[in-house]
């Protein structure tokens, strides 16, 4: 069983609000592995990163540190894709 994890800083001006969160869960949903997410800045989580409501409930604001953990098939690819999304959205 592949397990991967990553820590990211959210750069988006309004944090991970509805629109970027929708893109985030759509990408997460493309991968077969289980993906969980924690907001290290406020202690919320871990939550299912494939659920839009769970992600929004983490209250991820600009500058927040988040911890992503993927377990199962394509775990590395999933986290890479999510990291790229965060970077592109921020860019």
């Amino acid at each position: 069983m592949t397990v991967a994890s990553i820590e990211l800083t959210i750069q988006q001006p309004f944090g991970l609000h509805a629109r970027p969160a929708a893109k985030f869960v759509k990408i997460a949903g493309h991968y077969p592995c289980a993906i969980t997410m924690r907001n290290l800045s406020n202690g919320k989580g871990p939550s299912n990163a494939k659920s839009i409501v769970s992600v929004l409930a983490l209250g991820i604001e600009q500058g927040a540190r988040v911890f992503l953990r993927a377990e199962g098939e394509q775990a590395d690819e999933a986290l890479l894709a999510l990291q790229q999304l965060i970077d592109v959205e921020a860019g």
Partner: protein
Amino acid sequence: MESRVALIADRVWDGVAVQSRLGTAVILRGNQIEAVCPMGDVPDGITRQSYPNCTLLPGLIDAHVHYSGVFGPAFLAAGVTTVRDVGNGLDWILERRERHAADPSLGPDIVCCGLLIDGAPAFWQRIGREHADADSVRRTVREEAGRGVDQIKLYAALSKEQLSAGVDEAHRHGKFVLAHLGSGITADDVVDLGLDETEHLTGCEAAWRASTTDALDQMIDRLLAGRVIMNPTLVVWDRLGRLVDHAFNFDTRRRWMPQAYLDIWKWYPRVHGQRRLVYQTAVPCLKRGLLRMHERGVRLGLGTDTPFPHLVPGFSVHDELAMYVDCGIPPVDALRSATSINAGIIGKSGRIGQIAVGFEADMLIVQGDPLQDIDAIANVHSVWRQGRAIDLAAQLARAQATAATVPEDPITQALLIRVPKSDGPIPPALPAEN
């Protein structure tokens, strides 16, 4: 030359009569019903479409929804060919109404009320607008009437003074007014305000508890005197009482829903969960009250409050119909509410809701006889919208193609703003007296 087709089902129920007609053909020309005649009288040369062991009836109408663009396939697949949207983004719903009028395959025909006109603070963002005083309510009603909404919807945080201003201004513009009322508004108030319709049995306090028949009748006397229409949406109260009911997870109709809505529904017990026993206690009282209203002749519409939890668009109309029958209301009367009566309430009398000459060719064909067994309404065989058969498999494919997309429309965004704010564990249910 417009195409003509004769639809021949074992039974045709016209949306009004006590019984179905046998041996009857419905002839369509273009998007209208050209004739309803004995099947032997169908002229030669017309394409015939037979539906053995089926009942043909008017397309169903859901008179209480908050529409999302992703719901079109489900509504059509369930045989719901018209909806009344009772609170949405104003620009969005007006544009959506036009799109559906231009392309009926997108989804049901839409009658719209524009925004939820609310008091302060407004409960919903994106689909509601906050008003601090009566004058601002009047301004919004004027704006909405000017923009061309069909009816006006007033919401729960408005004061009596604001409600009164809203009703008055709407009536000045010839607009029908419905309201989801806050606590403290009584049936007397409903009548004094001049409301045309109330939603969810709000304003009907005697129906919410184990009242005596005399107390119910006293309230009903007032509603009858004021000619107030009721749109009970029993099914939403039932669902709010059963937010954590495990059985819903196995409802195969959920395949019509985007994943975002299944997530919202899963999370929803955190929003209202502590009140679920309150609703469970109230529902039997509401059912008794509704039956009494029916027996006394109150005009009953039918709606669902889709997309609140466990209300699959379109299919939840079948659920509401079954709840009416569970109250003791005869199936034919429940079906009248969802067809001809709803058509009148939403201002489409003479155009939809009946199988009769000159009416629009929106219709539903189900296996079995829903006038005998209301469950047959869910056995959808075919749906016709504006004279064309809907390809149900294509509609399911359409729904599934957008299942992973989070809709950016106002109702979805309103829910995504509000629902995740209630986090933490699902609260324990508190008994009704608390």
